[in-house]
């Protein structure tokens, strides 16, 4: 392929040049070997080819004006610190078990204040007093069969028996 090319041959080569420039840009070093060997002579001999190359160079130049990221020591240190933190994080995670009695003690301390304890004691004394003195209205217990209730409870709980003093049998305990 010399300087005197047929018009048809030139057009085909120019199309090939355009195909190459559009994909690989204007830097010959980035072209596939075959394209470089075929198209370099064309560029040397054709003003159209030269114009296409210049346009591709201009685009390359503009692309190269895009901002460049600056690598900093600060970023590197941040990454190394994060890697160290990952090492620590990957160690088995041990969650300290909170003893049950501590939890209970906490609840006792926070919930059982002296007014609530006093109210509970007062209600207990009052209950014993009205029970011992027969002050409960008989209407409240009408129709309530205490004996059958005792039987039901005793059959459900084999170790449980009702004595006169309503105590729990030793087996149950």
């Amino acid at each position, binding site marked *: 392929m010399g300087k005197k090319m047929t018009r048809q041959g030139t057009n085909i080569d120019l199309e090939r040049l355009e195909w190459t420039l559009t994909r690989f840009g204007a830097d010959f070093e980035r072209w596939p070997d075959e394209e470089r060997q075929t198209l370099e002579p064309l560029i040397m001999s054709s003003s159209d080819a030269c114009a296409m190359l210049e346009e591709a160079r201009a685009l390359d130049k503009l692309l190269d004006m895009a*901002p460049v990221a600056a690598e900093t020591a600060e970023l590197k240190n941040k990454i190394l610190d994060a890697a160290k933190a990952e090492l620590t994080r990957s160690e088995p995670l041990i969650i300290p078990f909170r003893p049950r009695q501590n939890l209970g003690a906490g609840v006792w301390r926070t919930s059982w204040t002296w007014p609530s304890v006093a109210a509970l004691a007062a209600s207990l004394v009052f209950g014993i007093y009205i029970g011992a003195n027969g002050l409960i209205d008989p209407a409240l217990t009408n129709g309530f069969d205490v004996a059958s209730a005792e039987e039901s409870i005793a059959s459900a709980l084999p170790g449980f028996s009702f004595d006169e003093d309503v105590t729990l049998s030793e087996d149950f305990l």
Partner: protein
Amino acid sequence: MERAASGDERAFATLVDRHLGPILALARRMLGDDAEAEDVAQETLIRLWNHASRFDRKRARLSTWLYRITSNLCIDRLRGRKVQPLDDVPEIKTDPEQDRSVHERQLSQRMDIALGGLPERQRLALTLFHYQELSMKEAADIMDISVEALESLLARARRSVKRELEPEWKALLPDNG
């Protein structure tokens, strides 16, 4: 690499020295934002640190593996973004050490916007081949596509950028206008 896989921090520091720059550059080109690019670079290298033992050098080069992780993280972020009006494009941070003219800064910002307007895969193809100067084969491997598909993406990317800049071609490049 084997030492880093066994938890050797100095070996990891050497890998960071070697790979941080290219990874950061790729992320910056893809995301158009310094802070996000730094986040992606950090995430990529921490993944390397955590999963170094999984890397199989028979299957890929380390740089290819890292570029692939970076590319995927960038694409995930791009897909998670809302469409950003051009007015909201962040200002380009300039290095005070560099004495760059106003024209160059404006040009730099203009190119950032032009690249940001490309579909993500075209942008990735252009970034890997033009900016990172990887071979066609390596760029195609990273994107998990054929060389022919990469060529097509590159051609569409360059045509799109050229078409985008055409109205202001002379103003942008007075020496070549």
